[in-house]
C-alpha cells in the first residue's frame, strides 16, 4: 500500500511540477528562515548560561539617583571586598575592570616591539575563576594573586607569541607596566559577554598610580568595572537586595547616602539588558525576529492548505474512483497525509541545507558566531521535528479530511461541492490572513527603514565634515603635534580635545552655579577641548564668544540644554556668570547650539567645554576638500615622529558616527530581509491560489464569454474578490502594525514620524503584489478560447 501511495505521490508531484516546486521551495525557504531565526534567538538567549554557577551568581549594579534615576552597570572598586566580609552567604566575589583600546607591546627579536590595540583586556581578581567557568590549559592561576601577572586565552597567546605555549613570556601594558604570562585558557565560547582575552592581576592595578587612590573609593563608578558574586546554594538574590538599604548607609557615597543605590541582577541578564548590561542585543529585536518566524510558519501553512485544497479539486475524481474501488475514508486520509509528509520532508531538508549554507555569510555580516552544532543542535532537531509535525497536521489534515469526505458520486462527476473543497469562506480567511501578515510586515519594514534613514539624515547639531581624529597618547608632544599637523597643506583646522562632540565616552560631573550653596541636581558632560574645537567640528555659537587659548580652566562654553536646566530663558543671561564644574571655577563666555553628545537614541546632556588641557587625548583634524591620501600620509608621518612608541590609528568622523548606527542597522536589515522573505513566500501562495481560482472559474468564464463578456469584465471578476480581501486585511493590519511599531519606536528618543503615508504604501504594495501574482493568470484565463474551457468540463 505504501508503495502505491509513494508512486502516486511522486507521479503527482511530477505532473504538477510547478505547484510542487512552489510548494517545496516556499516551505524550504520558510524553514530555512525559521531555523536561522531559531538559532539566532537561541544564541542570544544562551549568553553566559553555560557557567555552572550561573543560576546563583549575580552582578552588582548601581542606580544613580540624580534628578531621576539613571541605571548604571558598574559598581565601585571596593564592592567585592566588602561583599565577602559583610555577607556570610556570599561564596565568592570578584571585581573585573575592562579597559578599552589598550596598547599592548610584545617584545620580539628585532628589538622594536610589536604593537597591538586591544579591547578585550581586563584586570580581574583571582576569585573570578571560581565564579565563571574557564578551562585552564596550562599554568597555575594562583600565581594571579601576585602583581604583574596575566592569563591569556590560546588565541591571544598565538597572536602575540605564535604559540599557545606562552607561560613565562611577557608583554607591556600602555608602555608602562610589564606583565608575565602565568596561565593559558582555552578560547572562550562565543556566547559570553565576559569575553576578555587578557586577564591581568588585580594586584597590579592596586599599585598603578592612576588607579591606586580609588581602590577603596565609594565615590566613583566606571561602566567597565563589574562586581560579580556567587551566592551559596539556598540563598537568593532577594536576600541580598533586601540588605542593600542598610548596606549603602554603611558604605556610602562621600557626598550623599542616596546617590548610589546598589542592587544585584542575575549574571545572565547582561546580554539583553541595555540598562544594567551591555545590551548587545535588544529584546525587542528578538521578539521581532520570533514574530516574523511565526509569521513565516503561518504563511507556509496557509500556502500549503491553499495549494493542497486546490489540488484536492483536481484529484476529486481520483478520490471518487478510489472510493468505488473499496477505499475507506481512513485510507484516503492517510494517503493524503502521506503525500503531505513527503512534501514537508523535502521542504524541511532543503530548508536545513539552505540554513546551513547561509549561516557563514550571516555570521560574517552580523559579526556573530552562531553555530550549526553544539548543545543547541539537539534543541533545534526537536524544534524542527515539532515544526514538521505541526505543518503536516495543520497543512495536511485539513485537505486530507476534505478529500476523504468527498461523496464518491459527486467526486466522480467532477463537481465536488466547492464548499467542501476548502469552502470559499475558509479560503477567504486564509487569504485575508496572508494579506494581513504581508501588510503588517510591509508596514514594519517601512517604519524600520524610515528610522534608519531618519537616524542617518539626522542633524547631529554639528557638521561632521572631513574630520580625522588621531589619538594623543602623551601630553608632552601634543602641542608640537598640533603645530606640525596644522602646517601640512590640505589641513584646514586642528583641535586638541578629550573626545569629539558625539562620543561613547563622556565625563559626567556635578556643577555649581554662581553663589548657590547646593550643587545642581543634574550632571554636566564636561568636554575638555581647546579654542579650535568649535571651528573644527562646525559647532555654532548662539551667544557670547569662543574660549581664549589657555592650558588651564578659566572659561567655559555651555550648551543650550545647560541654559535650560538652569531655568534661564535666553542664552544671553548666562554669559559672564561664574560656575564651578568638577572643582574648576570659571566664567561662562559663550553658549553653543545643542548637539548630540551620545548616540542619536539618547537625550542631549547639559554640556560644558573648557580648556582642561591635561585631559586632552584626541587630535581632531579638519581636512580641505580634495584628495586626502597625501595629507593622510603626512599626518601619519608627523604623528609617528612624535610618538614612536605608540600605535597609529586614525578614524574619520563620519565613519565613527556610522558606527554608532551600525549594530542597530545590521539587525534592522535582518528584520527587513526576513520580512521580505515572508512577503515573497506569501506571493508564492497567492500565485498558487490564483491558479486555483482560475481553474475553478474556467467554466464560468467560458459561459460568460459566450454570453458576450469582455476581457476587462472577466478580469474584474477576479479583481473584485481580491480587492475586497486586501481591504479587509488592511483594516485588520493597520491598528496592529501601528501599535507594534509605535511600541518599537519608544526605544528611540529621536524617532521618525510615521503617518498615513506608510500605511498607504503598504496598501499600494499589497495591490501591486496581488496584481503581479494574480493578474497574469487571470489575464490568461480571460483571453482563453471559451470553446476550450467549456469542453474541459
Amino acid at each position, binding site marked *: *500500500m505504501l508503495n*502505491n501511495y509513494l*508512486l*502516486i505521490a511522486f*507521479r*503527482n508531484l511530477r*505532473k504538477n511540477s510547478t505547484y510542487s516546486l512552489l510548494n517545496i521551495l516556499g516551505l524550504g525557504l520558510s524553514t530555512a528562515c525559521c531555523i536561522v531565526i531559531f538559532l539566532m534567538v537561541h544564541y542570544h538567549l544562551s549568553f553566559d548560561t553555560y557557567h555552572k554557577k550561573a543560576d546563583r551568581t549575580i552582578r552588582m549594579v548601581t542606580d544613580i539617583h540624580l534628578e531621576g534615576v539613571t541605571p548604571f552597570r558598574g559598581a565601585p572598586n571596593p564592592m567585592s571586598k566588602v561583599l565577602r566580609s559583610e555577607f556570610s552567604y556570599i561564596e565568592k566575589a570578584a571585581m573585573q575592570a575592562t579597559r578599552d583600546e589598550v596598547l599592548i607591546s610584545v617584545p620580539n627579536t628585532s628589538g622594536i616591539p610589536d604593537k597591538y590595540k586591544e579591547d578585550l583586556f581586563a584586570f580581574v581578581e583571582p576569585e573570578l575563576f571560581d565564579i565563571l567557568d574557564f578551562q585552564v590549559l596550562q599554568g597555575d592561576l594562583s600565581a594571579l594573586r601576585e602583581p604583574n601577572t596575566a592569563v591569556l586565552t590560546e588565541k591571544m597567546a598565538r597572536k602575540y607569541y605564535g604559540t599557545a605555549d606562552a607561560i613565562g613570556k611577557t608583554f607591556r601594558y600602555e608602555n608602562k607596566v610589564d606583565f608575565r604570562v602565568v596561565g593559558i585558557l582555552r578560547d572562550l565560547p562565543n556566547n559570553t559577554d565576559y569575553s576578555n582575552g587578557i586577564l591581568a592581576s588585580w594586584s597590579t592595578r592596586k599599585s598603578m598610580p592612576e588607579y591606586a587612590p580609588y581602590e577603596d573609593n565609594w565615590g566613583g563608578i566606571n561602566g567597565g568595572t563589574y562586581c560579580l558574586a556567587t551566592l551559596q546554594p539556598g540563598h537568593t538574590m532577594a536576600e541580598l537586595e533586601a540588605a542593600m538599604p542598610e548596606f549603602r548607609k554603611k558604605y556610602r557615597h562621600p557626598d550623599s547616602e542616596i546617590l548610589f543605590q546598589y542592587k544585584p541582577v542575575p549574571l545572565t541578564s547582561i546580554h539583553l539588558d541595555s540598562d544594567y548590561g551591555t545590551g548587545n542585543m535588544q529584546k525587542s529585536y528578538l521578539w521581532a525576529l520570533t514574530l516574523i518566524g511565526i509569521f513565516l510558519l503561518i504563511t507556509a501553512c496557509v500556502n500549503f492548505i491553499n495549494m493542497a485544497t486546490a489540488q484536492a479539486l483536481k484529484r476529486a*475524481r*481520483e478520490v*471518487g*474512483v*478510489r*472510493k*468505488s*474501488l*473499496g*477505499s*475507506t*475514508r481512513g*485510507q484516503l486520509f492517510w494517503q493524503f497525509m502521506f503525500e503531505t509528509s513527503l512534501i514537508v520532508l523535502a521542504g524541511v531538508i532543503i530548508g536545513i541545507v539552505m540554513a546551513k549554507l547561509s549561516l557563514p555569510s550571516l555570521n560574517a555580516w552580523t559579526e556573530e558566531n552562531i553555530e550549526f552544532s553544539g548543545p543547541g543542535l539537539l534543541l533545534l532537531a526537536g524544534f524542527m521535528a515539532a515544526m514538521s509535525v505541526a505543518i503536516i497536521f495543520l497543512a495536511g489534515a485539513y485537505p486530507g479530511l476534505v478529500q476523504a469526505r468527498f*461523496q*464518491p*458520486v459527486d467526486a*466522480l462527476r467532477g463537481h465536488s461541492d466547492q464548499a467542501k473543497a476548502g469552502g470559499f469562506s475558509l479560503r477567504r480567511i486564509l487569504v485575508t490572513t496572508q494579506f494581513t501578515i504581508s501588510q503588517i510586515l510591509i508596514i514594519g519594514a517601512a517604519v524600520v527603514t524610515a528610522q534608519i534613514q531618519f537616524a542617518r539624515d539626522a542633524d547631529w547639531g554639528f557638521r561632521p565634515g572631513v574630520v580625522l581624529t588621531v589619538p594623543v597618547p602623551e601630553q608632552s608632544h601634543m602641542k608640537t603635534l598640533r603645530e606640525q599637523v596644522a602646517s601640512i597643506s590640505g589641513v584646514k583646522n586642528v583641535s586638541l580635545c578629550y573626545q569629539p562632540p558625539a562620543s561613547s565616552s563622556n565625563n559626567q560631573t556635578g556643577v555649581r552655579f554662581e553663589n548657590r550653596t547646593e550643587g545642581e541636581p543634574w550632571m554636566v558632560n564636561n568636554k575638555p577641548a581647546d579654542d579650535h574645537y568649535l571651528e573644527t567640528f562646525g559647532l555654532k555659537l548662539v551667544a557670547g564668544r569662543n574660549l581664549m587659548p589657555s592650558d588651564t580652566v578659566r572659561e567655559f562654553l555651555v550648551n543650550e540644554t545647560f541654559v535650560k536646566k538652569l531655568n534661564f530663558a535666553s542664552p544671553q543671561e548666562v554669559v559672564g556668570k561664574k560656575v564651578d564644574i568638577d572643582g574648576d571655577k570659571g566664567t561662562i563666555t559663550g553658549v553653543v547650539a545643542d548637539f548630540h553628545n551620545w548616540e542619536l537614541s539618547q537625550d542631549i546632556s547639559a554640556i560644558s567645554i573648557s580648556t582642561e588641557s591635561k585631559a586632552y587625548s584626541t587630535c581632531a583634524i579638519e581636512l580641505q576638500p580634495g584628495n586626502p591620501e597625501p595629507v593622510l600620509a603626512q599626518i601619519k608621518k608627523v604623528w609617528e615622529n612624535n610618538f614612536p612608541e605608540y600605535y597609529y590609528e586614525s578614524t574619520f568622523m563620519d565613519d565613527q558616527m556610522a558606527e554608532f548606527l551600525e549594530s542597530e542597522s545590521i539587525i534592522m536589515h535582518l528584520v527587513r530581509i526576513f520580512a521580505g522573505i515572508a512577503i515573497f513566500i506569501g506571493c508564492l501562495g497567492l500565485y498558487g491560489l490564483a491558479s486555483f481560482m482560475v481553474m475553478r472559474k474556467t467554466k464560468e468564464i467560458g459561459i460568460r464569454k459566450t454570453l458576450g463578456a469582455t476581457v476587462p469584465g472577466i478580469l474584474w471578476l477576479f479583481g473584485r474578490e481580491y480587492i475586497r480581501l486586501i481591504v479587509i486585511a488592511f483594516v485588520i493590519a493597520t491598528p496592529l502594525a501601528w501599535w507594534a511599531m509605535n511600541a518599537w519606536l519608544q526605544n528611540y528618543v529621536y524617532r521618525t514620524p510615521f503617518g498615513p503615508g506608510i500605511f498607504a504604501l503598504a496598501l499600494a504594495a499589497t495591490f501591486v503584489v496581488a496584481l503581479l501574482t494574480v493578474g497574469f493568470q487571470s489575464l490568461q484565463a480571460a483571453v482563453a478560447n471559451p470553446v476550450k474551457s467549456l469542453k474541459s468540463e
Partner: protein
Amino acid sequence: MLELKNIEKYYQNGATKSYVLRYVNAHIAEGEFVSIMGPSGSGKSTLLHILGMLDEPTEGEYWFLGEAVHKFNERRRTELYQQYIGFVFQAYHLIDDLTVYENLETPLLYKKVPSGERKSRIADLLDRFNMVAKKDLFPAQLSGGQQQLVGIARALIGNPKLILADEPTGNLQSQQAKEIMDVFKKLNEEDGVTIVQVTHSDINAQYGKRILHLMDGRVENEEIVKKQSS
C-alpha cells in the same frame, strides 16, 4: 441476491423536495443480467449508484444477500462492497497516474490481499483480456475500448458476485462497444456473474435478460428480453 423496497431519493431544497427516485421496488436474483433504461434524468444512474453503495437512498430498504444495507455504517458498507461488487464507468475512471498493472492492483491493496496472490490474479486477468503487453502503459496511452477493458478487468479483480456498469459503452464506437458487451455476456453466462447495466442503447439492452424501464424516478414497466441478439 438483492432487493429494493420503496427506495426514495430526493433533495430537500427549502420547502420543496425534488425527487430523483420514487417508490422503487426491485428484485434481482443471482446470475441475472439486468438492464436499466430510461430517458435522461429518469434516475437510472442514481439507482445504480445506490445499488453499488456509492450513494445512499433517502428512504427505503436495501437488502443485499440477506443483509440490511440501509442500516449499515460506511465502514461496513465498504466491507460488503469490497467483497461482492465491481463497478464499471462510462468514463472508465482509471487513475491517470497509475499504470494498467497498478490500476488493477489498487482494489486488491484496499482489500489487503497478499502480494503473491495479487500478482497471480493480475497476471490471470491480463492474460484473459490479452493485455499482458500493455501492463506498464498509462491510461492515456490506451484507446477508449482498451481503457474500458482495463476498467472491466479492474472491476473483476476482486472476484465480485455483482458487476454494476454505468453506460459502459457510452463513450465507445460501435465495434468496440460490441466487443465490450460480448465480454459482459460471457462473464454472465460462463462465470455466473450477476450484471446490472445502465444503458441508452436498445442493442445493448438486448444482451440482458430483463429490462427495467425508468421514467421520472419510477419503475414504469419491466420487460423480459425474449429474443437474444447474436
